Structure formats: C-alpha cells, structure tokens
C-alpha cells in the first residue's frame, strides 16, 4: 500500500472539484520522486538528525529533502549501478549488500511505516507535529530496530542517516548544503582547487572564501 495513497486521492479529488467549478488545478509538484508529504517528513527527520542551532541550519533546513529527492530520481535511486541478477541470498555480513530493494523502495516503505506508526502511537499526529524530544525517541527506536520496529526499520534508518549527512556535506549543486552551511559548520572551504599558498602555514586558519561548483546553467 502506498503511503502517498490518501494524499494523492485527496489531491485528485480537489483538482476534480476545482475543474468542475472551472478553477485552475494545483501547480505541478517541485518534487521529482517524493510526494510533498514525504518531502515534509524527510525535512523534519533531517532536522533531528542534524538539528538547527542559532548559527547553522539543520539538515532539513539546508535542503536534505531536495537532495534525497534528486538522488532518488537519478539512476542511483533505482540501484542502476548495482549487480541485480538473482538469486538473492542473505549472505554473511562480510558479503555486503544482498538485497534487491532500491533506495526508492526503501524510502517509500520506510516513510510509510513511520507515518503509520506515528498516527497509531501518537493519536493521529504526524512526525512533524511531535515535540522534538518525542521525535528523537522515535528516531532512537528506528535506529535500534526496537519494537514495534524491526530489521527493516534499522536498514531504513541507516539509509536515512547516511543520506542526510551526505546531503549536508555534498556540493549545493545537489540540493542540500544550502548556502554551504554544512561546509561553514566544519570549516571545509569547498570546491576550491589551489592551496599552494597554505600548505606550509601549519596550524593557521585558511582564509579563503567558501566556494561551490557552478550550478547548472539555465539555457
């Protein structure tokens, strides 16, 4: 069952009503792979994994959802580079990833289960509506795979954590690390290519402007 089901149905119903009354249908979604609800949930999750503080935004504020949306829409999202021939077998830990699930499937299912869990456990509320302490508790249980969560949720958490951190430190070109916030947090100057003047200046703060790659040109 798709987690986007109810939302999409209501959207469609709304647009059907709208066209019945001659109003314009809602604008197309800016998301290429996620639904708007999934994107909102991801942003909230990301802002707990790397929370905002007075100086630096959280990962969600910095664009984690946009990053993950772009990644899922790319070949990576469907594991295009993986060897995917059967038979699949669980394998030993040292034999690595042996699952046929793609990142798109993992996110769809993981976000759906999380949404369902919150609705059931927290009186119909969404994750975004919970207070931060409760959000962290949910995340902690996901991370441990503690009941009612299990091995799949643990896998989903690891995927999420890795991708949120990646979004925070990848070039802003990819949708996250907005304003190079992640790089400013840690002091990584970014997509620069010449430190010859600084190699021998041991221990000094490298005083160069933060820089990102050129964003794609709008033709």
């Amino acid at each position, binding site marked *: 069952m798709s987690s986007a089901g109810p939302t999409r149905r209501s959207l469609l119903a709304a647009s059907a009503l709208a066209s019945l009354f001659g109003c314009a249908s809602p604008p197309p979604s800016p998301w290429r792979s996620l639904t708007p609800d999934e994107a909102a949930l991801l942003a909230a999750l990301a802002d707990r994994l790397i929370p905002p503080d007075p100086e630096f935004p959280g990962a969600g504020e910095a664009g984690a959802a946009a990053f993950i949306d772009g990644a899922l829409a790319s070949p990576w999202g469907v594991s295009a580079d993986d060897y995917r021939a059967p038979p699949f077998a669980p394998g030993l830990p040292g034999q690595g990833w042996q699952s046929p699930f793609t990142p798109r499937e993992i996110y769809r299912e993981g976000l759906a289960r999380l949404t369902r869990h919150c609705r059931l456990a927290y009186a119909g509320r969404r994750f975004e509506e919970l207070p931060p302490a409760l959000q962290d508790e949910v995340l902690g249980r996901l991370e441990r795979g503690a009941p009612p969560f299990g091995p799949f949720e643990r896998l989903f958490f690891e995927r999420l954590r890795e991708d949120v951190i990646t979004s925070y430190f990848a070039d802003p070109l990819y949708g996250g690390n907005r304003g190079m916030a992640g790089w400013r947090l840690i002091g990584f100057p970014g997509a620069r290519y010449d430190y010859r003047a600084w190699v021998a200046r041991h221990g000094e703060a490298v005083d160069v402007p933060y820089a990102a790659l050129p964003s794609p*040109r709008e033709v």
Partner: protein
Amino acid sequence: MAPRAAGSALGALLGLALLALLPPRTAARAGDAGEAARGAYLARLADCGGCHTPPGGAPLSGGRRIPTPFGTVTAPNLTPDPETGLGRWSWQDFDAALRFGRRPDGLPLYPVHPYPYFARLDETASRELWAYLRTVPPAVQPVRGAALRFPFDLRLLVAFWNVLYFRPDPFRPDPAHDAVWNRGAFLVEGPGHCGACHTPKTALGGDRPPFLGGGEVEGWTAPPLDGDPATGLGGWRVEDIEAFLATGTDGRHLASGPMAEVVMQATSRFRPEDRHAIAVYLKSLPPSSPHPLTPPPPPPASGAALYALRCAPCHGEGGEGVPNLFPALRGNAAVAGAPASLLRILLFGARAAATPARPTGPAMPPVGAALPDEEVAAIASYVRARFGGAGPVSGEDVASLRVRGP
C-alpha cells in the same frame, strides 16, 4: 613526294598524334628530381595542404570547404588527376592561377586563394611548385563550385577588387637589410602569406594598413605580428618566435585554433634557418599603433574572486602560467588584443598544437560553458585589465558568441 618522304611525314604526324593521346609526362629528366623537391618545400612554406588537403583525405585533393565572411569556397583538387584535378593543365595555366589569380578560362579566382601574396614568388618558384604537384599521386575528387553569397559570387567583380588590392610585383630584396632579413621578408610577404590572417581587412576583404597589424579568422583573433609590446611581438625575443613556430610554444604562449594547424602542418617542418629568418624579419617591424596613453581600467572586483577560484589553479595567481603547458596570461596577445580568441577559448575550450618536439598538446576545458554569461564576462574583463591593460567585455558579448557556437 617520294614515298619515303611521305612515309616519314606521315610517321611524324602519327607520332605527334600518339603523343597527344599519352597522359601528360611526369618528370623523368635528371634535373627534375631537384626541381620537384624544391617545389615540395615551397608547398610546405605556403602550406598548400592547409586549404587543399581535406581532413583525413588524399594530399592536395581538394574538397575542403573554407568559410569566409562572404560565403564558403571549396578548395580545388591540385593533384594531376585529368578529370577532377590539374591533369590537363600546363605550367602556364598553373602560373596564371598561382601568381595572378586567373583561371584557364580567363575568369578570375576569388582572392580566397592568396594570389596577392603568391605574386611575390618568381617564375622559378612557380615552375618548382608545378614540378612538385606533378609528383603528387592523382586523386579523384570532384570539387563543386564556390558558394559565395550574391553579389560576391560574381567573378567579374573580382576584376574590380584586383584593381583595388592586387599588385602583381615579385619580391625585391631591400638592400638596406641583410640576406637573413630579406629571406624572412620574402617568406612572410610571399609564400607564408601571414598577412592573409594577420593583416586587417577592408569590408571587401582586401588588406588595409597597417601591414600585419592583426586580423580575425574563423572567429579567432590573429594577433598583430608587429612590435607592439602588449598586443604584438614586442615582448618576444627572436628565439621565442622561432620556438613557437617550431614547437607550437615559446614557453609562455601556446598555438591554438587555426594557428595550431599552421604550426603542426607547416612551420614546424620549415628549415630552422627559415624560421630564424622569419623571426628576424618580424622582430624588425615597429609597433603599428601607438600604445594608448590612458591608464588601463581597474580590474573588476568580482572577476578577481572568480579568477582565483576557477583560473588560478592552472594559470597562476599572477597569470604566469606553467611553461609549455598553461599559457601565461600576462603579456599574452590573446588577452591584451581583440577579445575574440579569449572568449572563444573560455566558452568552447581549445587544444594547442602538438609537435614532435612538444607532444603534449595541452587542452583548455570549456570552463565558461558551465558559467553564467556575467561570470564569463567578469573573468575575461578581469584578465584583460590585470594582465593586458585592455578594456572589458560585456555579458552580451559572451551571450552572442555562445549562441553563434564554435
């Protein structure tokens, strides 16, 4: 008539008829090998292949399309093929075309063929070139007529052009200079036809002064070859010019665009003494335009940060480059002179000449392709101001070149 006399007269007639049916004689006499060899070297000096050899095709077989501001001309087949080449031509036919721009049917050739320069050759040189051409393997390559735009396709107008721009005078040495200088002058003004690219042109495509004062070809700036310190060869030494012609680089500048081909196909194969003569001659030319007295404009601030980030890793913080690999921007005519080459290189990239002595053939990636027009303009303006003392370029200049394409 006595039977024997009639027979021999008939025999003679038959012999002549037979001779007429035979294919044109190729050089078979003892002295001819030397003549053809001298002609081969002249062909290298004149870089006939530059226009007349199609890429990857048979030598001098024509078919190569040459863009001009007036339309496209297709270079003829110079091989001895009787149907599609010069197989049925005589030396006189060839000489008229080579040095005087006249076809065997009497119509003029378009001055895309640089006969105003080849007119500096003398008759001996013309015969040597002809002897060489007869030794080139015949290649069948039919060549369509020219496709110049109206009214430039009217050949009779060329006669009018010739009145304005054609001086059929062979080269005369200047007694005020030595043999080396005169050899260089002959090579540059004659077979080398450097002015065909490096001399500014009128609207009709004829040379206008100053001689070797700079031009533009196929969208590239052909810098002045005079003594201007910023835009010309004023900052070069004789040995720098020689190295550039021999290897494609003098350490600080790299030949790219159409000049890369000239170096690879022609000048790198000249005799060293001829490259030296050319260098000596060029270095003797005074600066043609006075250096501007107004101070150079200040480099735009935005350009400085962009330069430091995108360009300095290769071209250096001070624009010094890396010898033979990344051109120096400081003192570089492509930076200080007309901006066509600079913008083209930024937007479309370029590959420099690769010669046996300097095989690297460094390539500049099309860095500007990924950047917005304003950033490309800022970088170009910064580089021109800081390293060339030259004026800025605008985002519109960049945008229009981007649209025009390489």
